[in-house]
């Protein structure tokens, strides 16, 4: 037991983009803020150098290698999720990778920062599937705008982000804070050829600076967004940790929170965390925010079995950990006749969205994206394994690099209570805490979406004069988890209310993509960031 008596107005579990945004805003408002982070605090240069020194490098272009290692630390008290940390119990592996470091998973995100469309808040009422959000686009528009300013989003104004090629959507009160990056040769070429076939290119809004922005330099095309932007041009949560800290917040790394305690009125009284040495420490606060990632947040709540909440904190509905979603996808590799040269500039930009339409009654919406990375080392290694030597080796490396297109499709996944995070009964980390155990499966709705997407990709190959050389229909995890503390108006089938406040506990907020009522096929970070700013505003009003 600790002799420390830590107290703050607000204690936040998790220093990722959501926790850091809330911490920064409340610290600016003069509140005392403590941010607890399970993992260590890392320097950018150490991550960059660990990456360069690694004999096998992570690459988004080869998801299979994702298990091979990560330049981010794996510590006994905060093990890397790149290894075998997560326990897989379902028919479909849910091998997501999140980072336990100060700043969180945005350190390695591709930085796509999309708003949802108004229709995406109403999946059930429009198409009879899944759930509606209890709030709508209009409730969030202001916060989307604030989040875009905070995160520094570069984007293309006046495009229809639904992919339908219509008038600009969703409606915006203000233009993007920064202009879009220039297009590369590949992006221009693909957009032109596929437009000719009736497809509508959409340029992704993202967190790379295109002018100096809050100490961030301009994106320099390092083509290394994942696993780490070497120059910090790309937003990550550590930047708001700095803002919070400069305004007086305390950031405590290597503090693994394992229990929340409530009282008979439902209020959260305290939380407990362990240090790497196993020592246990208590923190009291007026308001508690759990922003610990969609997998770890339900784990913490489920571990917190108390006298008043025997099922776990915030879990009277039994919905904590359930409705696990992702934008689980497929991928297709093509060889083009003409060189297209992926690999210049940032690692992603061009997408083809199919987000709206009556097809959604029967099939998942989707987003087709082209990976702008070139796995030169994988090409070279494969060729050498095949015994290619001499001039032919250089020629083939160049040819594969210039002519290979890696397409990936992300699909909407419906909330299904059977897909869930529970606590492992057999596997524990070095602190004795159970690891997350995952059950995940995909239904016909998802499969129907993949069939539509494959029709598009076949058409793409014709329009691009390319040949499909490889298909992977096997459920690629897209690291876009959501749903495990789902939002709703009904306390019996949801965990948090429309303010992201736990139905069961008036002074507990949950921040992150775990509150999303629908996954959509889009990257969820901006929505979670907007909700977080809204949470901070609510808290600021209360204390």
């Amino acid at each position: 037991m600790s002799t420390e008596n830590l107290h703050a107005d607000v204690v936040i579990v998790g220093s990722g983009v959501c926790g850091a945004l809330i911490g920064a805003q409340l610290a600016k408002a003069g509140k005392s803020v403590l941010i607890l982070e399970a993992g260590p605090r890392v320097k950018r240069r150490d991550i960059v150098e660990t990456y360069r020194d690694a004999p096998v490098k992570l690459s988004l272009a080869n998801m299979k290698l994702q298990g091979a290692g990560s330049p981010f630390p794996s510590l006994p008290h905060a093990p890397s999720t790149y290894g075998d940390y997560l326990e897989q119990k379902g028919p479909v592996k849910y091998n997501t990778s999140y980072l336990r470091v100060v700043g969180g998973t945005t350190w390695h995100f591709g930085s796509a920062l999309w708003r949802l469309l108004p229709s995406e808040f109403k999946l059930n009422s429009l198409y009879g599937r899944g759930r509606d959000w209890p709030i709508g686009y209009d409730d969030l528009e202001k916060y989307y705008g604030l989040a875009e300013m905070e995160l520094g989003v570069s984007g293309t104004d006046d495009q229809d982000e639904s992919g339908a090629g219509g008038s600009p959507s969703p409606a915006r009160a203000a233009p993007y804070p920064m202009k879009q990056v220039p297009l590369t040769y590949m992006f221009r070429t693909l957009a032109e050829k596929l437009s000719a076939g009736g497809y509508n290119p959409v340029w992704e809004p993202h967190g790379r600076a295109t002018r100096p922005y809050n100490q961030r330099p301009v994106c320099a095309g390092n083509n290394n967004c994942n696993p780490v932007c070497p120059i910090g041009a790309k937003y990550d949560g550590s930047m708001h940790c700095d803002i919070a800290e400069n305004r007086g917040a305390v950031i405590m790394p290597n503090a693994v929170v394992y229990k929340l305690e409530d009282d008979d009125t439902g209020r959260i009284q305290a939380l407990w965390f362990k240090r790497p040495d196993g020592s246990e420490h208590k923190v009291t606060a007026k308001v508690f925010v759990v922003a610990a990632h969609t997998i770890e947040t339900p784990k913490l709540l489920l571990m917190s079995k108390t006298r008043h909440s025997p099922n776990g904190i915030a879990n009277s509905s039994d919905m904590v950990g359930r409705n696990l979603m992702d934008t689980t996808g497929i991928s297709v590799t093509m060889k083009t006749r003409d060189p297209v040269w992926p690999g210049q500039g940032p690692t992603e930009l061009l997408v083809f969205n199919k987000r709206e339409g009556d097809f959604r009654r029967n099939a998942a919406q989707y987003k087709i994206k082209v990976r702008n990375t070139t796995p030169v080392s994988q090409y070279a290694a494969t060729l050498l394994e095949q015994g290619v030597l001499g001039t032919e080796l250089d020629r083939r490396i160049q040819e594969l690099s210039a002519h290979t297109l890696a397409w990936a499709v992300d699909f909407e996944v419906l909330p299904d209570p059977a897909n869930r995070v529970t606590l492992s009964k057999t596997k524990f980390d070095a602190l004795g805490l159970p690891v997350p155990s995952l059950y995940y499966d995909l239904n016909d709705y998802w499969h129907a979406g993949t069939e539509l997407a494959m029709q598009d990709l076949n058409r793409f190959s014709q329009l691009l004069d390319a040949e499909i050389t490889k298909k992977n229909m096997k459920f690629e995890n897209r690291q876009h988890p959501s749903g495990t503390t789902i939002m709703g108006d009904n306390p019996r089938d949801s965990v948090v209310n429309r303010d992201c406040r736990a139905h069961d506990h008036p002074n507990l907020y949950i921040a992150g993509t775990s509150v999303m009522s629908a996954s959509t096929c889009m990257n969820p970070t901006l929505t979670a960031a907007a909700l977080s700013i809204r949470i901070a505003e609510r808290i600021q009003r209360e204390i």
Partner: protein
Amino acid sequence: MMRKTSFPRSTRATLYLVAYSGVAALMATLPDARAEDAGLVEKGRYIATAADCFACHTSPGGKPFAGGYPITTPVGTIYSTNITPAPRTGIGNYTKAEFFDAVRRGVGHGNKRLYPAMPYTSYAGVTDSDMEALYAFFNSAVAPVEQENKPDTVRFPFNIRSGLVLWNWLYLDTRPFQAQPRETPQITHGRYLVNHLEHCGTCHTPRTIFMGPASMRYLAGSSVGAWYAPNITTDKVAGIADWTDDDLRNYLKTGHALNKGQAAGPMAEVVTNSTQFLTSNDVNAMIAYLREVPAVASDEKRSRTSYGTADRPEDAARGQASPEDRGWKIFSGSCASCHQAEGQGINAYPSLTHNSTTGSPNARNLVATILTGVERRSGDNSVFMPAFGSGALWVNRLSDQDIADLSNFILKTFGNPSVQVDASYVAKQRAALTP
């Protein structure tokens, strides 16, 4: 001999963008011109830009020309004054003669002596016609802002302003500017710009123990706070004889001269606020005059832009668990993504070889640049290098020892290997840059 100059423009990480947006705002809004001739006002705007009044008379985040910018000097902190045409706190009720006296003689309202942080010894040579224009500009194109002036914190005995009468007798040359015999009109004009409007010597000429300019070492280089304003005489080794006219033109217009040098710190402010706006004729005149400045040698044996590298440090060190040179590891992780693995630079990113900063006879600009980064604008182009000192993002911050190791690696590998620093040197520079 005391080599610290008295009047550095202190620099602040946030200043440049603010300053620039201030200039932009200034240019966009023209308050209702009184009966002044618009042409005269525009000329005055140009003179004010060339004289870079904005940089010192606008505080970070403050209203243009409303003063309050802190200038740290060895004798205390001096705050620039409000020079908007506000009647009470500004110069709204200065007569033309009073205005001229303030700018050219260092004498303010009520016969109050100005500290020579205001470079009136340089402005003394500004012509009457330029002064007329300047007066018209400040009176009719600058928005009046009533903002109290901040008291200076100058120590005794320097706070006795009457001492300045003696100082002025030593250093204030009140003779009107005029062409010299055998001087082309272009050189005459360049001399006017360099010595008077742009007041280059304020930083580039070292000071005597009385804080006056050391005329024997005119433009021969001087410390400016944590920074160093290098020798810009025609000396073949110590000066800028090896800079081509294009190099100098690029430097003044953009702050970037390929394989020569890049403006950071106070000089980045000068480019951002002043020299980038000069006409080609004026830039050419400055260059022509600088070619005439007498050579002043210093101790160094090689030109500061002459250092290249034979080494490929990456080849020996990559993949080693603990490379011999800690400085390389810091360089590789913090610098090489932009300046490249062999320090060669690429496109907008300058090389670290053939670089005035790394080849300098002292490490001031190198260490100050690492600590504060670079922010500079010319036209639509923003140049930005992140800071690695106390004001940096946490994930980028380097300790004094880190910066010492890094600097020594850079000096040894890409620059002047005879210069080396230690952590206490970095700590001192860090303190000097912390407001």
